[in-house]
């Protein structure tokens, strides 16, 4: 089914199992002391809303968006440090959104969440254009998502 070259990279600290680590609240801040701004995009409103709220409770400045188009509109004003987006969405998909978003904010971080193995092809396509995204697999535990976003992204090869 899913074999072949692996081109996107993945944070290995999303373990299957409880690691018992405690959240480190201090790390939800940027270097200037402001909270890290995260734009949460999912076409399922409930997921976008609750995820944003989870991140908010962990000290991030998170805002939800429900389509790729509205996310881009919001990004222009919100200037997020990080785009956290579902991959499979109706209309503009997560990868298309990420590519557009990177043009607007080349320094921002992009984290994609996917519930299906099938998306790897889309990511491989992107990788072949020289673009690599971090990918987390759905469903992701809130605690692990928080940990992941607090860590600095690995340098892009």
């Amino acid at each position: 089914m899913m074999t072949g070259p692996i081109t996107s990279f993945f944070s290995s600290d999303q373990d299957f199992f409880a690691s018992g680590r405690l959240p480190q609240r201090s790390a939800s801040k940027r270097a200037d002391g402001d909270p890290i701004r995260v734009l949460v995009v999912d076409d399922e409103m409930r997921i976008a809303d609750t995820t944003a709220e989870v991140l908010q409770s962990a000290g991030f400045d998170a805002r939800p968006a429900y389509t790729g188009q509205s996310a881009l509109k919001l990004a222009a004003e919100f200037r997020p440090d990080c785009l956290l987006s579902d991959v499979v969405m109706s209309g503009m998909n997560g990868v298309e959104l990420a590519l557009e978003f990177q043009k607007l904010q080349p320094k921002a971080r992009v984290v994609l969440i996917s519930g299906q193995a099938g998306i790897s092809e889309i990511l491989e396509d992107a990788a072949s254009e020289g673009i690599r995204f971090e990918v987390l697999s759905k469903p992701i535990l809130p605690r692990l998502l928080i940990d992941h976003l607090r860590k600095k992204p690995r340098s892009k090869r």
Partner: protein
Amino acid sequence: MEEVVDPRSHLAAIVDSSDDPIISKDLTGRIVSWNPAAERTFGYKAQEIVGSSILRLVPPELHGEEQNILTRLAKGERIDHFETVRMHKDGTRIPVSVTISPVHDVSGHVIGASKIVRDVSERQQSEESRFRLAAIVESAEDAIISKDLNGVVRTWNTGALRTFGYPAEEMIGQPILKLIPPELQYEEDDILGKIRRGERIEHYETTRVRKDGERIQVSVTISPIRDESGKIIGASKIARDISDRKRLERLLVEAEKLAVNGRMAAAIAHEINNPLESLMNLVYLARQNSVQSSKAYQYLVTAEEELERVSHIARQTLGYYRDTGAPAPLYLHELLQNVLTVYQSKLISSNIATDAHFEDNEKITIRKGELMQVFSNIVANAIDAMPKGGRLTVCTGIVGRSQGRGVEVAVRDSGVGIRPEQLERVFEPFFTTKGDLGTGVGLWVARQLVTNRGGDITLTSSREPGTSGTEVNIFLPFELPKPVVTQQKH
């Protein structure tokens, strides 16, 4: 009183009534007598040909032959069963067998020859067709074998050598049972029974064994062989190796299953993962918003743990987990310890004792998520194999193999074991020995992940009471496999 009959009239009657042409000629080759059979065979009436040269019957290119015959006859020689070609009045060539005897006068001088001719066209035709048949049999792709009614092989063609691996000299005179797997030997009695009753068996699909022990799928057609009187004296058997076709059929069915299940898994993954994601967020938020010392908080902690289990299962069975991270060095025993911890409560409740012997004191570079999935699957299988309790043994060690040095892991259960015919299929997708409980994906995925890493996975099993159980061996080389080169677009 008996009438005295001249014996010569007897002879004349015999000559006249003979089915074979009987001709006599003098030493110059002139025809002297000509019987009715000669007329039937060559088309000339006696009055047309008597007195003319025998050469009228001999094709021009064979005229030399006649001279030779006459010379030998003059010496008093008899010429036996000499096969040649003669000509009909209409020019048709007739293959004949000829016996020529000198005719003596009363004083013993050779004065001519009698010639008994047999038209052998029919016999030759049947011989020719026999040769042609033999050539066809010999060049056939299919195995064509004949056997007698005791099941002893009588003929064996080249196709049979190719199909079964035995040369003719090793099979002729041997019982056909040599080709039949022990558990199917009863088939031969059925077959012989049908053949004795004159029945034909068509396109019967079964299993046979090659000389090298390999089992092959064959389609067999068996027909009775009768002698001239119609009595059944044996059977001819045409066998076609259909192993490839069978394999193809199985692959097609699997591909179909794969497609259907793949679509289903993708749909279910989407339908389950999304609500699960919301649910986990909601429970997390509920816990964050409850007083830490309250009962509700404790319930929500437990609920989160349960959700974690569900999401683990969802990730593993639907859209199987793929760790896309870069491989990192770690001790395999730490990962195994992790897996055993996850399954600890299940092991205890299933009354399974665990033995672990870890001797892999060297880190190996792997994708943790993938190997986690591999060993979770194997341990889960082991637990399922021991519903009445037992012993789970997990060993690791560093070994040197042809692929280089690496870590070997053995996971052994003391369950009932897997039947040999199922053992060869356990790595196939959607094959399960667990009935409705299994998805048939676990070992298939495990093998892909292990082989992608350059390693291998093997499975041995015993159903011997007392020592039954299944052992899964995984070897992972320290060296990473050569990366697949991806096409770069610029």
